[in-house]
């Protein structure tokens, strides 16, 4: 399908290209994740300071219910119907307004989000069953599998995808995660994460690139797109690189297929293998952060393992340090490096393109800034409380409601992954392309294991 045909199908007029300047503050979902995440955090702090429990009430979810009979679950929903309705309206307004400003049609977004919210309540309901853990019914896995089944069996209209914004939800979740993540932990554990991420990013990218070009004779632009996709953060990194090297549309489409397939395999594979090996939550979180491709898929895997190991917070902290703080920072750097290589060594025609160091900032995943700001602000705000007051007042009335909101954002994300993954839409890839990418995956997983378990194992085990 050409893009013009795609326009016709979507019934929208093409718009002018978006500027990299101030317009990005309201046209890019990274910035919206920051505005919403920090806004929710500030509202939470103000309500907490005034002694209000409104947010604590509104942040309700049935995930911790531990219900024994179906009647108990229904009783919970009946008793809290008004609260859930209010919460739904709040989410809808926040996401709906921001989506509209970014250019998404509300006539498509609203029905889509209603479906997503109702399904999320079902997921929480399943995860809140007293015996859920016995059957590995962890919320992220259940959300993913049910989403996949619906997307591939039920003939849902394509426009319903409008509200299944995987990246938007995970970015909001990460900013909210910053509000419960002490900045002191970033300072003490961050350098090791960055060191490990640097090793893995360089090795994985170079393995895919050189195996692809030298062993299988694949196009260097395709290999650059695949290499960075495997090394940094999947399709997002591939898209960032695509313009730097003038990659073909088909190259990015190939990356989508390989990243999605391997990311789904890893969501299932890594938590169960980590459990079979008896790895601690911190070590497994770091391994998943080193070896998963996309933030959304990685959070699903880390959260699943954290629930299996009974320490979700530590698994998510280790994953965040490794993936969000360590690997994601590499996107802009790789874009700049490949733009330099492409213009100096690969291109014969004059394209007027000059690699600029500002590329590193333009392509920087801005939601990470929101994570840091939330972490710094909350650390300062809560530093005046004694440990006893923190545990008796701050934690139940400020921190846990924010954790619950974050969990909602994550469930929206995990469900959206499944609901948007239609296997019939993925591109067929050649055996050579598959092999080149898979070589990188194998090296990445083995090296990630060695670094997380043996080289930096003591560091990740000590994480609290």
């Amino acid at each position, binding site marked *: *399908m050409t*893009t*013009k045909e*795609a*326009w016709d199908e*979507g019934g*929208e007029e*093409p*718009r*002018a*290209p*978006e*500027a*990299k300047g101030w317009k*990005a503050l309201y046209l*890019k*979902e*990274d910035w919206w994740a920051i505005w919403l995440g920090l806004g929710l955090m500030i509202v939470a702090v103000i309500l907490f300071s005034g002694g209000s429990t409104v947010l604590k009430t509104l942040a309700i979810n049935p995930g911790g219910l531990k219900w024994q009979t179906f009647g108990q679950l229904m009783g919970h929903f009946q008793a809290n119907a008004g609260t859930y309705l209010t919460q739904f309206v709040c989410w809808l307004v926040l996401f709906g307004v921001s989506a509209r400003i*970014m*250019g998404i049609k509300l006539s498509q977004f609203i029905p889509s989000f209603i479906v997503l919210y109702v399904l999320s309540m079902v997921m929480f309901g399943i995860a809140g069953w007293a015996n859920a853990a016995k059957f590995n019914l962890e919320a992220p896995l259940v959300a993913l599998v049910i989403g996949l089944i619906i997307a591939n069996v039920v003939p849902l209209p394509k426009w319903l*995808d409008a509200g299944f*914004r*995987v*990246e*938007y939800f995970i970015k909001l979740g990460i900013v909210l995660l910053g509000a419960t993540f002490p900045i002191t932990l970033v300072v003490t554990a961050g350098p090791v994460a960055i060191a490990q991420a640097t090793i893995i990013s360089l090795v994985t990218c170079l393995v895919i690139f050189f195996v692809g070009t030298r062993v299988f004779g694949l196009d260097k632009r395709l290999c650059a797109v695949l290499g960075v996709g495997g090394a940094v*953060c*999947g*399709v*997002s*990194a*591939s*898209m*960032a690189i*695509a*313009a730097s090297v*003038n*990659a*073909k*549309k*088909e190259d*990015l*489409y190939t990356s*989508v297929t390989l990243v*999605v397939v391997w990311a789904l395999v890893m969501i299932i594979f890594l938590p169960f293998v980590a459990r079979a090996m008896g790895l601690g939550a911190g070590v497994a979180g770091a391994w998943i952060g080193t070896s998963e*491709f996309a933030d*959304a898929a990685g959070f699903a895997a880390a959260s699943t393992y954290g629930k299996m190991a009974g320490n979700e917070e530590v698994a998510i902290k280790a994953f965040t340090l490794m993936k969000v703080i360590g690997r994601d920072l590499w*996107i802009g750097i790789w874009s700049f490096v490949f733009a330099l290589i492409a213009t100096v060594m690969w291109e014969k*025609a*004059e394209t*007027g*393109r000059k690699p600029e160091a500002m*590329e590193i900032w*333009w*392509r920087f*995943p*801005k939601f990470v800034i929101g994570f840091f700001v939330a972490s710094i602000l909350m650390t300062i705000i809560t530093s005046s409380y004694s440990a006893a007051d923190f545990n008796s007042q701050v934690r139940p009335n400020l921190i846990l409601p924010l954790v619950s909101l974050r969990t909602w954002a994550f469930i929206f994300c995990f469900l959206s992954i499944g609901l*948007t*993954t239609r296997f019939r*839409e993925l*591109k067929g890839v050649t055996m050579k392309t598959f092999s080149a990418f898979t070589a990188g995956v194998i090296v990445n997983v083995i090296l990630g294991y060695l670094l997380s378990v043996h080289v930096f194992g003591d560091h990740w085990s000590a994480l609290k």
Partner: protein
Amino acid sequence: MTPVCARCRSFVGDAAALERAVPGLKILSSAYGSVRADTGLCERHGSFVTPSQTCPEFQPMHAAGREQAGT
């Protein structure tokens, strides 16, 4: 007028159109994200470009309108 890709009729920079043009793009990514910056798709060459790039096959946007009006 500077003949850059951003002003060419083959340039697609709209996030929604890009997501429809590459099936599966939004599964684990998004055209609305910062990492894309202002990357767009050249319809003529089927490749990704930045708005400031130039090309010998540049065709101004308004030319498309004239062409369509004349047919």
